[in-house]
């Protein structure tokens, strides 16, 4: 789900109220202008062919009446704008006070062109790191610390809230409170280079139990590989430079340049919302990431078909 028109977060609902107010008042103003224009055109249509120049004197009764109408129009505009400004100001206050008490704390770091997500539990052993997919319990008040690792990005999940820029050197705090279970798509909203178009993320809002289960799963170390092909895949992972950028819990891979892959198979999408995460698409991605997402930071690593299949099998075990 990806639309500002279906407001399913506390903040988005506040903003939606401003939108509706604006639409009504501005719509009414527009109709008034157009009605006046149509009236002006229809009024004189019959006399257009002869059309002598109108008197230059400006104090005819018609002109005086028009001046009064103009006064009314200025009053109406002022009144309308005042109502809109007030709505906007009060909503802005409401946004500040919404979701004040942090129940889930996150750190979201934007990279060209993916999102790193960290759950910052006070207990370091319950710290979870993942990418491009955020799970939240329904109704929870969420505080997220936003940061950018490179250029300016903008965090935007339209169903839940407006956007917030992530500016290097300026950490920001951002709050969410989702009201209904569902999958909400988000996308970077500030132009950030070649793959700005493919920098999406997903927020999965689920019941408290589902969330807790998911959290425990993310905390767990993935089981040691047993199947032969997956074992070969793991070997490929460590001999083909994958481990130079990616981390997998329970192994020696601990690099933090690319997304953490400890539980990559549990995520629904690949490459920041670019491809669905199944073995066919994963294979396509690994074969040539530059073909799928030109310019992204993952280099092409030439692998034979067997190695590729093995790697796909290995990554598939990381649930």
């Amino acid at each position, binding site marked *: 789900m990806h639309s500002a028109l279906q407001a399913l977060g506390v903040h988005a609902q506040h903003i939606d109220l401003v939108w509706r107010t604006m639409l009504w008042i501005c719509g009414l103003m527009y109709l008034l202008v157009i009605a006046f224009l149509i009236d*002006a055109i229809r009024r004189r249509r019959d006399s257009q062919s002869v059309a002598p120049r109108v008197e230059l004197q400006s104090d005819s009764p018609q002109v005086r009446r028009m001046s009064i109408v103009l006064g009314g129009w200025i009053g109406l505009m002022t009144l309308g704008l005042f109502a809109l400004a007030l709505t906007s100001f009060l909503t802005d206050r409401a946004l500040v006070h919404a979701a004040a008490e942090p129940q889930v704390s996150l750190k979201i770091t934007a990279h060209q062109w993916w999102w790193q997500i960290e759950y910052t539990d006070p207990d370091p052993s319950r710290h979870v790191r993942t990418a491009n997919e955020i799970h939240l319990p329904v109704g929870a008040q969420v505080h997220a610390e936003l940061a950018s690792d490179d250029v300016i990005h903008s965090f935007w999940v339209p169903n839940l809230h407006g956007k917030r820029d992530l500016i290097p050197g300026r950490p920001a705090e951002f709050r969410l409170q989702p009201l209904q279970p569902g999958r909400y798509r988000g996308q970077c909203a500030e132009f950030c280079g070649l793959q700005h178009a493919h920098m999406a993320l997903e927020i999965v809002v689920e019941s408290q139990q589902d969330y807790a289960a998911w959290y425990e799963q993310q905390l767990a170390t993935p089981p040691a590989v047993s199947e032969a092909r997956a074992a070969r895949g793991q070997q490929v992972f460590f001999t083909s430079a994958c481990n130079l950028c990616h981390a997998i819990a329970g192994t020696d891979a601990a690099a933090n340049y690319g997304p953490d892959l400890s539980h990559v198979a549990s995520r629904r999408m690949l490459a920041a919302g670019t491809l669905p995460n199944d073995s066919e698409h994963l294979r396509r991605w690994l074969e040539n990431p530059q073909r799928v997402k030109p310019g992204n930071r993952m280099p092409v690593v030439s692998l034979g078909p067997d190695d590729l299949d093995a790697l796909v099998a290995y990554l598939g075990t990381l649930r």
Partner: protein
Amino acid sequence: MSARNPSLDGEWLDEAATHERLRRTWRDAPGLWGALTTLDHKRIGLRYIVTAFGFFALAGIAAFVMRLQLAHAENELVGPDLYNQLFTMHGSTMMFLFAVPIMQAAGIYLVPLMVGTRSLAFPRLLSFSYWIYLSGGLLLWVAFFLNIGPDAGWFAYVPLSGPQYAPGKRVDIWAQMITYTELSSIAVAVSTIATILKQRAPGMALNRVPLFVWAILVMSFMVLFAMPSVMITSTFLLMDRLVGTHFYNPAEGGDALLWQHLFWFFGHPEVYIIFIPALGMVSSIVATFARRPVFAYPLMVLSLLATGLFAFGLWVHHMFATGLPRLGNSFYTAASMVISIPTGIQIFGWIATLWLGRPRFTTPLLFVGGFIVVFVIGGLTGVMLASVPLDLQLHDTYFVVAHFHYVLIGGAVFPLLGAVYYWFPKLTGRLLDERLGKVNFWLLFIGFNVTFLPMHYLGLAGMPRRVYTYSAGLGWDGLNLLETGGAVLIALSMLLLAINIVRSLRSGAAAGANPWDADTLEWATPSPPPSFNFAHIPLVTGSHPLWESERLRVMRGLQLDKRELVLTSVLDAQPDLREPLVPPTIWPLLAALAVGGMFLASIFTPWAVIVGAVPIAITLTAWFWPKGKAEEEAEQ
């Protein structure tokens, strides 16, 4: 007009001989040399207009290719690298090389005619400005065709455009193009302001100045205050990239937000710099075709002034999502909303003028109607974007793309095309075809709305701007395809305009001096106007000189054998001085080459600034060399 005129040596000349003398005094050298040295505001203005429309066509083609790319999901017509260059070129060209120059060009051509003088003030500066503008534009587009076109967007946010994330010369070229065009823009503004304040025909007190001229005056002052900001912005960027300063580098104590403040302090007034002259065009067209003066003239002037002033107080509404202090944001919300009041007053004023008058629905007036219908939507979505909370949803989406195209195409291009149909006869002596003109209008009107109206919805549905493609399954395909269809209609309408212009130049109906029976002074001289504009400087006794009396009164006393202007007082336009005008010269062109060469070289080495100062000094010295004997005599 009087039939006989005294010449310098006391003989009396008839009208034909007077014209002949003036023609000899004001003509340019023949051929190429004349073209390079001319100081005639009409030749230079026309040059500006043709060049700006050339850039308009290029930027339009770039937009059309983008629309083709977006026609369906995951299209692979152009890749991300080319797409990013395309939208950067489209935005930069439309803003810097088309919109501002074309509005200034309208002023260059029309202001001296409308205020009744024979030349724009400081014509050498004007000539210099054109060459600088042309070099800036060529630099950008030559770079694009060499595949080193800039790709960081028309507002080139750091750090994406900084040394670390934009290697190569692409952004440097963009930054220097800004410096070129804004230098030229400031030069034109200075000339225009001086002309309007000091060269109005005797009797044209400030309360008689045509609304178009007021609009150009306000716009020129805005240029003076806004453009330096962006020149500093781009120069800081160049220094960060070239000599290792850290203006925008947070790691070294700089700030990425500094860029945004400096840029939008220019960038928001920029929109009004484009829009205000268009309002002037609308006022001219409405008065002429409603056949009565514009309703509430003083309020219309005050609205222009208020718009120009407020425009400098709302740049932060481009930055609501950056998380600036909330109380400050509320101020910018209020300012952004307040600015819609003067515009609302003007919209009312034009409709009231039509209501009170007897409108003739010619093509120019049709474009004004289109302007009101389209632009008011853009204005109202602007009010929506002024609200901090709502802007957080709409910012950087296709809703914003829709908004500013409604404002810029609705608010500037529609009036501009109306102005083309309106003033074309004055510039060329021939009328454009009315029937083709009406088809042109309806094609554009329908095509425009089909292209841009759905974008409002797409933005709300979550489509961010500046994406080279989008995933299938987001439900954005259908409307995007429809929009591409609309773009085809827009392209056809522009083609039709070009056909109309070419046909009319060949075989259009002769226009005569005043084909529309308009009221302002530019219609008092033949079409196209002679090099000296007016054989006699008009004497203005009212706000609508050509409507108020059958015969225009004129003043005498300027020499026929010397280039002379009348200077008048600022408020009441009382005759003040006879001012000799400088003769044509090649030095502005050479100075422009020296300055342009320095800018170009400074992309590669900072030493260019030091070495390049020498030729600049030489050319400027020659340009400003003390007046010769002949000119001093003329002054006595």
